[in-house]
Protein backbone atom coordinates (compact mmCIF):
# COMPACT_ATOMS: atom_id res chain seq x y z
CA UNK A 1 0.00 0.00 0.00
CA UNK A 2 2.82 2.36 0.86
CA UNK A 3 4.23 1.31 -2.40
CA UNK A 4 1.09 2.28 -4.26
CA UNK A 5 1.07 5.60 -2.50
CA UNK A 6 4.58 6.29 -3.65
CA UNK A 7 3.82 5.26 -7.16
CA UNK A 8 0.76 7.47 -7.37
CA UNK A 9 2.75 10.30 -5.84
CA UNK A 10 5.50 9.77 -8.36
CA UNK A 11 3.14 9.75 -11.24
CA UNK A 12 0.93 12.68 -10.32
CA UNK A 13 3.02 14.67 -7.90
CA UNK A 14 5.54 16.31 -10.22
CA UNK A 15 2.75 17.61 -12.42
CA UNK A 16 1.07 19.15 -9.43
CA UNK A 17 -1.98 17.00 -9.74
CA UNK A 18 -2.25 15.92 -6.14
CA UNK A 19 -4.18 18.13 -3.81
CA UNK A 20 -4.27 15.73 -0.92
CA UNK A 21 -3.81 12.09 -0.26
CA UNK A 22 -5.51 10.19 2.49
CA UNK A 23 -5.61 6.65 3.56
CA UNK A 24 -8.28 4.89 5.51
CA UNK A 25 -8.06 1.23 6.43
CA UNK A 26 -5.90 0.53 3.47
CA UNK A 27 -8.00 2.42 0.97
CA UNK A 28 -5.88 5.04 -0.66
CA UNK A 29 -7.67 8.06 -1.96
CA UNK A 30 -6.16 10.90 -3.84
CA UNK A 31 -7.73 14.27 -4.30
CA UNK A 32 -7.02 15.94 -7.60
CA UNK A 33 -7.79 19.34 -9.04
CA UNK A 34 -11.08 19.42 -10.80
CA UNK A 35 -9.85 21.23 -13.86
CA UNK A 36 -7.34 18.55 -14.72
CA UNK A 37 -9.41 15.49 -13.95
CA UNK A 38 -9.15 14.02 -17.41
CA UNK A 39 -5.36 14.37 -17.43
CA UNK A 40 -5.19 12.56 -14.13
CA UNK A 41 -7.40 9.78 -15.35
CA UNK A 42 -5.39 9.35 -18.52
CA UNK A 43 -2.18 9.29 -16.51
CA UNK A 44 -3.53 6.78 -14.04
CA UNK A 45 -4.76 4.60 -16.82
CA UNK A 46 -1.73 4.68 -19.04
CA UNK A 47 1.24 4.88 -16.68
CA UNK A 48 2.81 1.44 -16.81
CA UNK A 49 3.37 1.40 -13.08
CA UNK A 50 -0.25 2.00 -12.22
CA UNK A 51 -2.56 0.83 -14.96
CA UNK A 52 -5.85 1.63 -13.33
CA UNK A 53 -7.78 0.40 -16.30
CA UNK A 54 -11.12 -0.43 -14.75
CA UNK A 55 -13.60 2.10 -13.49
CA UNK A 56 -15.56 0.54 -10.72
CA UNK A 57 -17.91 3.31 -9.83
CA UNK A 58 -18.52 7.02 -9.88
CA UNK A 59 -20.68 8.80 -7.38
CA UNK A 60 -21.18 12.07 -5.65
CA UNK A 61 -21.05 12.98 -2.00
CA UNK A 62 -22.68 15.97 -0.42
CA UNK A 63 -20.51 17.30 2.38
CA UNK A 64 -22.96 19.87 3.60
CA UNK A 65 -23.05 18.69 7.19
CA UNK A 66 -19.87 16.70 7.25
CA UNK A 67 -17.38 19.21 8.56
CA UNK A 68 -19.73 20.78 11.05
CA UNK A 69 -20.57 17.41 12.46
CA UNK A 70 -16.97 16.47 12.78
CA UNK A 71 -15.86 19.31 14.96
CA UNK A 72 -17.81 19.83 18.12
CA UNK A 73 -18.91 17.00 20.31
CA UNK A 74 -22.61 16.77 20.56
CA UNK A 75 -24.01 19.34 22.87
CA UNK A 76 -27.02 18.59 24.97
CA UNK A 77 -30.18 19.67 23.30
CA UNK A 78 -31.79 22.94 23.79
CA UNK A 79 -28.55 24.74 24.35
CA UNK A 80 -27.75 26.99 21.51
CA UNK A 81 -24.13 26.69 20.66
CA UNK A 82 -22.26 28.41 17.98
CA UNK A 83 -20.46 26.17 15.64
CA UNK A 84 -16.98 27.41 15.38
CA UNK A 85 -15.94 27.81 11.86
CA UNK A 86 -12.55 26.93 10.70
CA UNK A 87 -10.34 29.54 9.25
CA UNK A 88 -10.24 30.01 5.57
CA UNK A 89 -12.98 29.36 3.08
CA UNK A 90 -15.12 26.33 3.76
CA UNK A 91 -14.28 23.29 1.67
CA UNK A 92 -16.42 22.86 -1.41
CA UNK A 93 -19.71 21.25 -0.76
CA UNK A 94 -19.68 18.37 -3.21
CA UNK A 95 -17.30 15.65 -3.98
CA UNK A 96 -17.17 13.25 -6.87
CA UNK A 97 -15.44 10.00 -6.11
CA UNK A 98 -14.09 7.69 -8.76
CA UNK A 99 -13.26 4.16 -7.74
CA UNK A 100 -10.51 2.83 -9.91
CA UNK A 101 -9.18 -0.64 -10.11
CA UNK A 102 -6.13 -2.09 -11.70
CA UNK A 103 -7.01 -5.49 -13.01
CA UNK A 104 -3.41 -6.58 -13.43
CA UNK A 105 -2.29 -5.61 -9.95
CA UNK A 106 -5.70 -5.85 -8.26
CA UNK A 107 -5.14 -2.53 -6.58
CA UNK A 108 -7.82 -0.02 -5.88
CA UNK A 109 -7.62 3.71 -5.79
CA UNK A 110 -10.15 6.38 -5.00
CA UNK A 111 -9.86 9.56 -6.94
CA UNK A 112 -11.69 12.54 -5.54
CA UNK A 113 -12.68 15.80 -7.04
CA UNK A 114 -14.13 18.61 -5.01
CA UNK A 115 -16.93 20.56 -6.58
CA UNK A 116 -18.14 23.83 -5.24
CA UNK A 117 -21.79 24.65 -5.26
CA UNK A 118 -21.41 27.57 -7.60
CA UNK A 119 -19.57 25.63 -10.25
CA UNK A 120 -21.10 22.22 -10.57
CA UNK A 121 -19.48 21.21 -13.78
CA UNK A 122 -17.08 18.29 -13.88
CA UNK A 123 -15.45 16.73 -16.88
CA UNK A 124 -17.10 13.51 -17.84
CA UNK A 125 -14.89 10.45 -17.95
CA UNK A 126 -17.18 8.62 -20.33
CA UNK A 127 -14.65 9.20 -23.07
CA UNK A 128 -12.20 7.02 -21.15
CA UNK A 129 -14.53 4.53 -19.54
CA UNK A 130 -18.00 3.96 -20.82
CA UNK A 131 -18.76 2.48 -17.45
CA UNK A 132 -19.24 6.02 -16.18
CA UNK A 133 -22.30 6.61 -18.33
CA UNK A 134 -25.01 5.75 -15.87
CA UNK A 135 -23.18 6.55 -12.65
CA UNK A 136 -22.59 10.06 -13.91
CA UNK A 137 -26.18 10.35 -14.92
CA UNK A 138 -27.15 9.23 -11.46
CA UNK A 139 -24.84 11.75 -9.84
CA UNK A 140 -26.52 14.40 -11.95
CA UNK A 141 -29.88 13.05 -10.95
CA UNK A 142 -29.18 12.86 -7.27
CA UNK A 143 -26.87 15.81 -6.66
CA UNK A 144 -27.16 18.05 -9.65
CA UNK A 145 -23.56 17.62 -10.67
CA UNK A 146 -23.13 18.38 -14.33
CA UNK A 147 -20.73 16.34 -16.35
CA UNK A 148 -19.24 18.08 -19.31
CA UNK A 149 -19.03 15.92 -22.38
CA UNK A 150 -21.46 13.31 -21.24
CA UNK A 151 -23.32 11.91 -24.24
CA UNK A 152 -26.75 11.79 -22.69
CA UNK A 153 -26.95 13.63 -19.42
CA UNK A 154 -30.48 13.33 -18.17
CA UNK A 155 -32.15 12.00 -15.11
CA UNK A 156 -31.74 8.32 -14.52
CA UNK A 157 -33.68 7.12 -11.54
CA UNK A 158 -36.09 9.96 -11.04
CA UNK A 159 -38.42 11.05 -13.78
CA UNK A 160 -37.37 13.80 -16.11
CA UNK A 161 -39.63 16.47 -14.67
CA UNK A 162 -38.51 15.91 -11.12
CA UNK A 163 -37.44 19.28 -9.80
CA UNK A 164 -35.07 18.47 -6.93
CA UNK A 165 -31.91 16.56 -6.12
CA UNK A 166 -32.94 14.05 -3.51
CA UNK A 167 -29.63 12.78 -2.23
CA UNK A 168 -28.45 16.19 -1.19
CA UNK A 169 -28.24 16.51 2.53
CA UNK A 170 -30.69 19.36 2.72
CA UNK A 171 -33.42 17.46 0.95
CA UNK A 172 -36.08 16.97 3.60
CA UNK A 173 -36.85 13.50 4.76
CA UNK A 174 -40.56 13.86 5.20
CA UNK A 175 -43.26 14.98 2.88
CA UNK A 176 -42.85 15.86 -0.73
CA UNK A 177 -39.47 17.43 -0.48
CA UNK A 178 -39.24 18.66 -4.00
CA UNK A 179 -42.20 20.94 -3.51
CA UNK A 180 -40.44 22.86 -0.81
CA UNK A 181 -37.07 22.46 -2.24
CA UNK A 182 -36.90 23.66 -5.75
CA UNK A 183 -33.38 23.66 -6.97
CA UNK A 184 -33.94 22.60 -10.52
CA UNK A 185 -32.57 25.00 -13.02
CA UNK A 186 -31.49 27.45 -10.39
Amino acid at each position, binding site marked *: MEDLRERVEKCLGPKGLVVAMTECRGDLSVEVPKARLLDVMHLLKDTPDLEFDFLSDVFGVDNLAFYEKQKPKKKP*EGEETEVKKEKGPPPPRFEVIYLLLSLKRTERLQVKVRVAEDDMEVDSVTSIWKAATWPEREAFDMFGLRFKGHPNLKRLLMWDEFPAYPLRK*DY*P*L*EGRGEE*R*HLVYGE
Partner: protein
Amino acid sequence: MARPVVKKKYTLGERIYLLEILKGMALTWKHFVFNVKASFRPGPHTVPTCWQYPEDRTREISPVYRGLHMLCLDEKGREKCIACGTCAKTCPAHCITVKKGKRKEGEEDKYAGKMYCASFDIDLLHCIFCGLCQEACPKEAIVLGREFELAQYTREECHLDKQKLLANYRKAKEEGKLRPPRKAVPVVPAPPKPEVKGASSKATEVKKGQVEVKKATKKAKNAEKAKSGD
Protein backbone atom coordinates in the same frame (compact mmCIF):
# COMPACT_ATOMS: atom_id res chain seq x y z
CA MET B 1 -20.90 -3.57 -29.93
CA ALA B 2 -22.59 -6.80 -30.38
CA ARG B 3 -20.03 -8.59 -32.38
CA PRO B 4 -20.71 -11.41 -34.78
CA VAL B 5 -19.60 -14.75 -33.52
CA VAL B 6 -18.16 -17.56 -35.50
CA LYS B 7 -20.79 -20.18 -35.01
CA LYS B 8 -19.82 -23.33 -33.30
CA LYS B 9 -19.73 -26.43 -35.43
CA TYR B 10 -22.71 -28.44 -34.46
CA THR B 11 -22.45 -32.16 -34.24
CA LEU B 12 -24.75 -34.16 -36.46
CA GLY B 13 -26.96 -35.03 -33.51
CA GLU B 14 -27.36 -31.38 -32.72
CA ARG B 15 -27.96 -30.47 -36.30
CA ILE B 16 -30.97 -32.59 -36.97
CA TYR B 17 -32.93 -31.25 -34.00
CA LEU B 18 -34.87 -34.43 -33.45
CA LEU B 19 -32.36 -36.45 -31.47
CA GLU B 20 -31.98 -33.93 -28.67
CA ILE B 21 -35.67 -33.19 -28.69
CA LEU B 22 -36.41 -36.87 -28.23
CA LYS B 23 -33.92 -37.04 -25.39
CA GLY B 24 -35.60 -34.11 -23.74
CA MET B 25 -38.99 -35.69 -24.24
CA ALA B 26 -37.76 -38.86 -22.58
CA LEU B 27 -36.77 -36.79 -19.59
CA THR B 28 -40.08 -34.98 -19.30
CA TRP B 29 -41.85 -38.31 -19.73
CA LYS B 30 -39.91 -39.70 -16.81
CA HIS B 31 -41.04 -36.82 -14.66
CA PHE B 32 -44.56 -37.18 -15.92
CA VAL B 33 -44.81 -40.85 -15.00
CA PHE B 34 -43.25 -40.25 -11.63
CA ASN B 35 -45.62 -37.46 -10.78
CA VAL B 36 -48.71 -39.20 -12.04
CA LYS B 37 -47.85 -42.16 -9.87
CA ALA B 38 -47.15 -39.85 -6.96
CA SER B 39 -50.40 -37.97 -7.33
CA PHE B 40 -52.36 -41.17 -6.86
CA ARG B 41 -50.72 -41.83 -3.55
CA PRO B 42 -52.94 -41.18 -0.58
CA GLY B 43 -52.35 -38.13 1.49
CA PRO B 44 -52.42 -34.44 0.77
CA HIS B 45 -48.76 -33.93 0.05
CA THR B 46 -48.08 -36.23 -2.85
CA VAL B 47 -46.12 -34.52 -5.57
CA PRO B 48 -42.90 -33.55 -3.81
CA THR B 49 -43.09 -29.85 -4.45
CA CYS B 50 -46.68 -28.98 -4.03
CA TRP B 51 -48.25 -28.32 -0.69
CA GLN B 52 -52.02 -28.17 -0.92
CA TYR B 53 -51.73 -25.22 1.31
CA PRO B 54 -54.95 -24.23 2.99
CA GLU B 55 -55.91 -27.85 3.63
CA ASP B 56 -52.49 -29.28 4.13
CA ARG B 57 -50.69 -27.63 6.96
CA THR B 58 -48.23 -30.36 7.67
CA ARG B 59 -45.26 -28.43 6.41
CA GLU B 60 -43.00 -27.74 9.30
CA ILE B 61 -42.23 -24.10 9.87
CA SER B 62 -38.82 -23.36 11.22
CA PRO B 63 -38.87 -22.81 15.00
CA VAL B 64 -36.95 -19.61 14.50
CA TYR B 65 -39.32 -18.36 11.81
CA ARG B 66 -39.84 -14.63 11.79
CA GLY B 67 -43.59 -14.35 11.65
CA LEU B 68 -46.21 -12.66 13.74
CA HIS B 69 -45.00 -10.89 16.85
CA MET B 70 -45.87 -11.83 20.38
CA LEU B 71 -45.13 -10.55 23.85
CA CYS B 72 -43.90 -13.32 26.05
CA LEU B 73 -44.83 -14.21 29.59
CA ASP B 74 -42.36 -15.90 31.86
CA GLU B 75 -42.94 -19.27 33.49
CA LYS B 76 -44.95 -17.69 36.29
CA GLY B 77 -47.23 -16.05 33.79
CA ARG B 78 -45.84 -12.57 34.30
CA GLU B 79 -45.14 -10.18 31.50
CA LYS B 80 -41.49 -10.13 30.65
CA CYS B 81 -41.42 -6.75 28.99
CA ILE B 82 -39.80 -4.00 31.01
CA ALA B 83 -40.61 -1.27 28.53
CA CYS B 84 -37.01 -0.31 27.99
CA GLY B 85 -37.81 0.71 24.45
CA THR B 86 -34.80 -0.91 22.88
CA CYS B 87 -36.98 -2.65 20.32
CA ALA B 88 -38.54 0.63 19.29
CA LYS B 89 -35.14 2.20 18.90
CA THR B 90 -33.73 -0.72 16.97
CA CYS B 91 -36.58 -1.10 14.55
CA PRO B 92 -35.50 0.05 11.09
CA ALA B 93 -39.08 0.59 10.04
CA HIS B 94 -40.03 2.51 13.19
CA CYS B 95 -43.13 0.42 13.66
CA ILE B 96 -42.99 -0.15 17.41
CA THR B 97 -44.29 2.26 20.03
CA VAL B 98 -43.91 1.48 23.71
CA LYS B 99 -45.34 3.33 26.65
CA LYS B 100 -43.99 2.76 30.08
CA GLY B 101 -45.88 2.02 33.22
CA LYS B 102 -44.55 1.58 36.72
CA ARG B 103 -45.44 -1.54 38.59
CA LYS B 104 -47.59 -0.85 41.60
CA GLU B 105 -47.71 -2.76 44.85
CA GLY B 106 -49.47 -6.05 44.51
CA GLU B 107 -48.83 -6.40 40.81
CA GLU B 108 -45.77 -8.59 41.22
CA ASP B 109 -47.62 -11.59 39.86
CA LYS B 110 -48.54 -9.65 36.76
CA TYR B 111 -45.30 -8.04 35.68
CA ALA B 112 -41.82 -9.46 35.95
CA GLY B 113 -39.92 -6.20 36.04
CA LYS B 114 -40.34 -3.00 37.97
CA MET B 115 -41.42 -1.32 34.82
CA TYR B 116 -43.91 -2.71 32.40
CA CYS B 117 -45.31 -1.61 29.13
CA ALA B 118 -48.53 0.27 29.58
CA SER B 119 -49.10 -0.11 25.90
CA PHE B 120 -47.19 -1.82 23.15
CA ASP B 121 -48.16 -1.15 19.59
CA ILE B 122 -46.83 -2.63 16.42
CA ASP B 123 -47.91 -1.48 13.01
CA LEU B 124 -47.76 -4.63 10.93
CA LEU B 125 -48.09 -2.65 7.74
CA HIS B 126 -44.75 -1.05 8.47
CA CYS B 127 -42.98 -4.06 9.92
CA ILE B 128 -40.41 -5.68 7.65
CA PHE B 129 -39.95 -8.77 9.81
CA CYS B 130 -36.22 -8.35 10.11
CA GLY B 131 -36.12 -9.70 13.65
CA LEU B 132 -33.89 -6.96 15.00
CA CYS B 133 -36.35 -6.19 17.80
CA GLN B 134 -36.30 -9.67 19.23
CA GLU B 135 -32.55 -9.69 19.03
CA ALA B 136 -32.25 -6.39 20.81
CA CYS B 137 -34.69 -7.27 23.54
CA PRO B 138 -32.78 -7.86 26.77
CA LYS B 139 -35.57 -9.93 28.32
CA GLU B 140 -36.64 -11.95 25.31
CA ALA B 141 -40.03 -10.40 25.72
CA ILE B 142 -40.84 -9.52 22.14
CA VAL B 143 -40.49 -12.47 19.85
CA LEU B 144 -41.44 -13.18 16.28
CA GLY B 145 -43.53 -16.31 16.16
CA ARG B 146 -44.30 -18.98 13.64
CA GLU B 147 -47.63 -17.55 12.56
CA PHE B 148 -47.36 -16.49 8.94
CA GLU B 149 -50.93 -15.87 7.82
CA LEU B 150 -50.98 -12.14 8.21
CA ALA B 151 -53.56 -11.05 5.68
CA GLN B 152 -56.33 -8.92 7.10
CA TYR B 153 -59.32 -7.08 5.78
CA THR B 154 -58.85 -3.74 7.44
CA ARG B 155 -55.99 -1.54 8.50
CA GLU B 156 -57.11 -1.67 12.09
CA GLU B 157 -56.61 -5.40 12.17
CA CYS B 158 -53.03 -4.90 11.12
CA HIS B 159 -52.39 -2.87 14.19
CA LEU B 160 -51.15 -5.07 17.00
CA ASP B 161 -51.75 -3.77 20.48
CA LYS B 162 -50.61 -5.31 23.70
CA GLN B 163 -53.66 -7.50 24.16
CA LYS B 164 -53.28 -8.98 20.71
CA LEU B 165 -49.59 -9.58 21.25
CA LEU B 166 -50.27 -11.41 24.49
CA ALA B 167 -53.03 -13.37 22.83
CA ASN B 168 -50.57 -14.38 20.13
CA TYR B 169 -48.30 -15.69 22.82
CA ARG B 170 -51.03 -17.67 24.49
CA LYS B 171 -52.13 -19.14 21.20
CA ALA B 172 -48.60 -20.14 20.31
CA LYS B 173 -48.12 -21.66 23.73
CA GLU B 174 -51.28 -23.69 23.35
CA GLU B 175 -50.11 -25.01 20.03
CA GLY B 176 -46.64 -25.66 21.35
CA LYS B 177 -45.13 -23.32 18.82
CA LEU B 178 -43.09 -21.16 21.12
CA ARG B 179 -39.77 -20.03 19.91
CA PRO B 180 -36.93 -21.92 21.54
CA PRO B 181 -34.89 -19.83 23.96
CA ARG B 182 -32.31 -17.70 22.28
CA LYS B 183 -28.87 -19.17 22.02
CA ALA B 184 -26.17 -16.75 22.98
CA VAL B 185 -23.78 -16.15 20.12
CA PRO B 186 -20.25 -16.79 21.32
CA VAL B 187 -18.27 -13.61 21.07
CA VAL B 188 -14.53 -13.27 20.77
CA PRO B 189 -13.42 -13.52 24.38
CA ALA B 190 -10.48 -11.20 24.90
CA PRO B 191 -11.68 -7.86 23.71
CA PRO B 192 -9.23 -6.20 21.42
CA LYS B 193 -8.78 -2.58 22.20
CA PRO B 194 -11.99 -0.97 21.09
CA GLU B 195 -11.51 1.37 18.19
CA VAL B 196 -14.16 3.74 19.31
CA LYS B 197 -15.68 4.06 22.67
CA GLY B 198 -19.09 2.58 22.53
CA ALA B 199 -21.92 4.79 23.40
CA SER B 200 -22.79 2.54 26.28
CA SER B 201 -22.21 5.35 28.73
CA LYS B 202 -25.15 7.13 27.31
CA ALA B 203 -27.70 5.87 29.73
CA THR B 204 -31.21 6.59 28.72
CA GLU B 205 -32.80 8.88 31.14
CA VAL B 206 -36.04 7.56 32.37
CA LYS B 207 -38.54 10.03 33.54
CA LYS B 208 -41.00 9.05 36.13
CA GLY B 209 -44.40 8.03 34.99
CA GLN B 210 -45.23 7.36 31.41
CA VAL B 211 -42.75 8.35 28.81
CA GLU B 212 -43.18 7.83 25.21
CA VAL B 213 -40.11 6.38 23.66
CA LYS B 214 -39.37 8.56 20.81
CA LYS B 215 -38.30 7.28 17.50
CA ALA B 216 -34.62 7.42 17.09
CA THR B 217 -34.53 9.75 14.18
CA LYS B 218 -37.04 12.21 15.38
CA LYS B 219 -34.45 14.64 16.60
CA ALA B 220 -32.50 14.48 13.45
CA LYS B 221 -35.60 15.13 11.47
CA ASN B 222 -36.51 18.13 13.53
CA ALA B 223 -33.08 19.53 13.02
CA GLU B 224 -33.39 18.89 9.32
CA LYS B 225 -36.70 20.65 9.18
CA ALA B 226 -35.40 23.65 11.02
CA LYS B 227 -32.54 23.85 8.62
CA SER B 228 -34.64 23.63 5.51
CA GLY B 229 -37.04 26.17 6.89
CA ASP B 230 -34.37 28.79 6.86
